[in-house]
């Protein structure tokens, strides 16, 4: 039982989560989840449920949801949603909202990205590359001024500047 008088209810939360009214058109039809690979996970990723939580403005429940993170970004939901809700983008938007409201949600990979420019050791895979006859790549670490520029740019974004302690050092 969710008592809407007792729960944290933010009527306009959807605006904070998503960038357009598209989400309000969701009529819980289920098309998105019928095609969603991650709906096979346990607990299942159910966009219609997430959309409902957003629209009802149930902050605590939405913060607790792990399922947005199990999306495989296949965008099938986006293709089939009759109402043009853009469910995949909604899922990403919910992640961003969670990141904004709970720093433990920050994906560690963005720290790597900030520091190295890549999520994989692109510039360090020299031996493997050589084994197939490839040389080194013009990776960003080879252009320090570019890497600095890239980092300066990111430092101007909210997620990096608000959590700068994670990115420095």
């Amino acid at each position, binding site marked *: *039982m*969710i*008592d*809407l*008088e007792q729960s944290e209810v933010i*009527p306009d939360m959807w605006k904070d989560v998503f960038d357009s*009214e598209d989400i*309000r*058109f*969701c*009529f*819980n*039809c*289920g*098309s998105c*989840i*019928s*095609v969603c690979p991650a*709906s*096979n996970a346990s607990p*299942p990723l*159910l966009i*219609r*449920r997430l959309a*409902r*939580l957003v*629209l*009802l403005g149930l902050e605590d429940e939405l913060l607790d949801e792990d399922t947005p993170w199990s999306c495989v970004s296949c965008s*099938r939901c986006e*293709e*089939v*949603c*009759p*109402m*043009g809700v853009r469910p995949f983008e909604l899922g990403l938007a919910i992640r961003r909202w969670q990141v904004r409201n709970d720093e433990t949600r920050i994906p560690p990979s963005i720290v790597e990205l900030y520091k190295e420019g890549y999520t994989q050791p692109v510039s360090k895979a020299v031996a493997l590359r050589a084994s197939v006859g490839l040389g080194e790549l013009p990776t960003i670490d080879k252009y320090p001024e570019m890497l600095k520029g890239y980092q300066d740019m990111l430092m101007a974004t909210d997620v990096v500047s608000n959590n700068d302690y994670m990115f420095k050092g």
Partner: protein
Amino acid sequence: MTHPQSNQSEGKVLVVGGGMGGMRTALDLAESGRDVVLVDKAVSIGGLMTQLDRTFPTNNCDLCTLSPNLSQAGRAHRIDLRTMTRVEATKGEQGAFEVTLTTTPRHIDIDRCTACGDCLRDHPECVSFTPGLDHRAPTCMRYPQAIPQAYSINMEQCADVDALVKSCPVGAIVIDDKITTVTETFGSIVLAPGAEVYDPSPIAALGYSEQPDVLTSLEYERLLSASGPTGGKLLRPSNGQAPKKVAWLQCVGSRARQADQGVSYCSSACCMFAIKEAIVTKERFGTDIETTIFNMDIRTSGKGYEAYYQRSKDTDEVRFVRCRTQNLQAGETGALQLRYLPEESDTFVTEGFDMVVLSTGFFIPEDIRTLADQLKVDLNAHGFALTDSFHPVSTSRAGVYVAGLFEGPKDIPETMVQASAAACMAATHVGVTPDASPTEELPPERKIDDEPVRVGVFVCECGENIGGVVDVDNLVSHAQTLGDVTHSENVGYGCSAESMEHIRETIVEQKLNRVVIGGCSPRTHLTRFQDLLRKAGLNRYLVDIANLRDQDAWVHRDAPELATAKGRELIQMGVAAVRQSKPLADQTLPMSQDVLVVGGGVAGMSAALSLAGQGFKVHLAERENELGGEARNLRRTLEGEDVRTQIEHLVAATEGHDKIQVYTGALIVDHGGMPGKFTTGMQVGPQLFYRQITHGATVLATGALANRPSVYMLGEHDAVSTQHDIESLLEDDTDTVKTWSKVVMIQCAGSRTKENPACSRICCQSSIKNALRILDVNPAASIWVLYRDMRTIGMQEDAYQEARRRGVIFVRYDPENPPQVEPVDDKVKVTFHDPILADDLSMHADRVLLSTGFIADDEGTEELARIFRLPRTEDGYLLEDHIKLRPVDLPTLGFYVAGTAHSPKSIKESVAQAQAAASRVQTLLARGEINLGAAVARVEASRCAACLVCVRACPYGVPFINADGNSEIDPALCHGCGICAAECPAKAIQLQQFDDDQILAKLEGLLERITA
């Protein structure tokens, strides 16, 4: 008898589109004495209906009921039917439109063509009888009752023109048939071009273009249809096997915002037709077939539709799953796998189906938009003709009216109502013309009572059709050996103009007084030969046709001798029957031209004004002290129209009309008479002054009541009220509305329940209307709608989506677990289950608004139905004659119904039905006298034992035991089925035209040489 007329000009009406809608309009106009040109771009008329199998809610076909009417009306020379014809341009204005019509060549002279099909057999490359109905079965026959019964030729595809021309035995093929363009003047125009059905190929996820077993509903209908590609067998296109599991996916191409997924509105008819298809599948192909309908809402808000839906679940075991799935994959075994999560559940299901039917909706194609453009008719955002609630069939251009799908998505009953309404409106600009059929030229009927029977037998060869199989000369000489046959001959093509004239002359010269035609089916040709007899000075009922073509030569081509022998027997039967036939008179009755309208709501006033406008005298009886009815409590429609002002206009116009006599405070107390001459008594005013009125027809527009059930603390707590209660508040007391921060609306409060099973149809759109109004006044309000199915049909869906856009929250509830309402000081606490979150929610509402809808005026109509002897439905609404084809006519001739007395409906629908009733009244009264035909049952009083068997047997409740203690059958009411005659143990009843002597004579004619 002269027809009362207002200031109308002579002229005719143009009806564009010959589907159900166009046909009904044309028939109504013709029957009310107007000349009509009916054009259709297709090769034969009928529209969508011709492609359907059986239609809801009666699950029967009905074409056999409608199409004969049309050929009959065509015979009245009132309807000029032009197929393969389009409108090119229009000029002028109401009263005198100048319209250019272009007809593409058919290359077949319809009047000559006998529909033998030889041309198609020999030249399938260029002859068609089916305009490519189904891309999976291009050769299927369109439908057996096609009108005109004719083929069409595409000359461009013809390789050998000479051979083609020669293939036609009657020379009906016209090589140099040209495009013809004519410009004609019309007083008014009715548009009924229908709509098209969405093509689901763009939704790749549904696999329509890849999977043979994924069909549109129209294709599925073709598959079920006896005239379809499989001859009515339900077989999977992929492998020709019978399916065991069939799924329907609803709203395909409807209720969408995303490009390519179709239109935003609801197509209104597809929920019902999917249920119908599921039921028919089970009924006809085995109850062990599993049928599942995947849906978001089931929208069955028409009359009796909710019961149909419930029955499909309970009795037919149709399964309903709430989920729109777009995950369709071909499984290993060739089955189609659907994956879905039912709304009520948390476990995904992947289920195999043998066939998947896509319930595709309607849209207006470019072609019809062009037509609208040519006629300068405004369209709404979706391309449907723009109309309003108080003028439901009037377009933006004066004198141009609309009916059917082109006005908005709808089913057949609604199409029929609009079609009659459009006929009523179109008739206002066009005067009644004398029947063009040359009655005066007919010679008087010859008295034959004293003549000895002289039978003439005329046998057709019909080219090779009969002559190629049956030895016609043998039949001719055999006929001469039969008793009373004084003439017999081979007439080649009996129905050709030359032969007809020859037969006529022969009848006159030889003083024949009975005729047998050895020809084709009486279904198609009997009326022609009846007309011929009449022209020859004989009563039209003295002819019979021996069906030598369709039922002999065509079916026994491989056994010519047997066919000839059978032909002899068929002629024997014909001769035996005509020997017994007697001249019959068609029943006629004089009519009063006055009309009684009972009920002074929107419907009653609209019907009265339409009729008065056409010059009829109308008596309008209203039981309250003022006119206006239920709509007085409404302020605005969903579309924003100002109801109060409109009602005031209507009341003023009604009261001020010199042809309308209004009786307020009127109580109907007695009734008698016949259709055309009814007498009805009422007590009027506070003094209960008794008045008796004589009228030819009666319109019942007695409405229904706003429901006020004792549920959800209604009447117990101030914070709970009905949607109806706040109509005025929203207009006049916005300050109160501004104090509501949380509003909960509960749908189906007191509707769709055991006590009041019908859906009230208006309350889903009403709650959307009010939600949007509340947000206008108080944008900060949080509004929750607890619903079972949101039934915002047609364009109402746009408003529903608008409500979502503006933040209204919709939560479905299950009737087994309805919301709970408890008092908390001046608020109420509402608790309900949300299936999406799979959790219960509770909140404190400032206001609970109940969507309470309608309830039949049970007491009121019970009394009225008793006085007028009219049947009612179980839930107390008046029962129409035929729910689909005659939704305005009551079963008793001369009675019509309009508005919510028929079933819950909106103002727009009430007004449309009122105009339709006015049209139906005119079709009746225009006759001046009723010709009831001759096939009526008659009681021979001296034989009647008053056993009541016939009284019980008659499907129309016609026979009654009269004051003399005998059964009496009112010929005006008899439909001519003969059931009573068959049941009567005393053999006191005979059905004319089919009396026992005739049937027995046929048997004897057939069998006499066997036992004798």
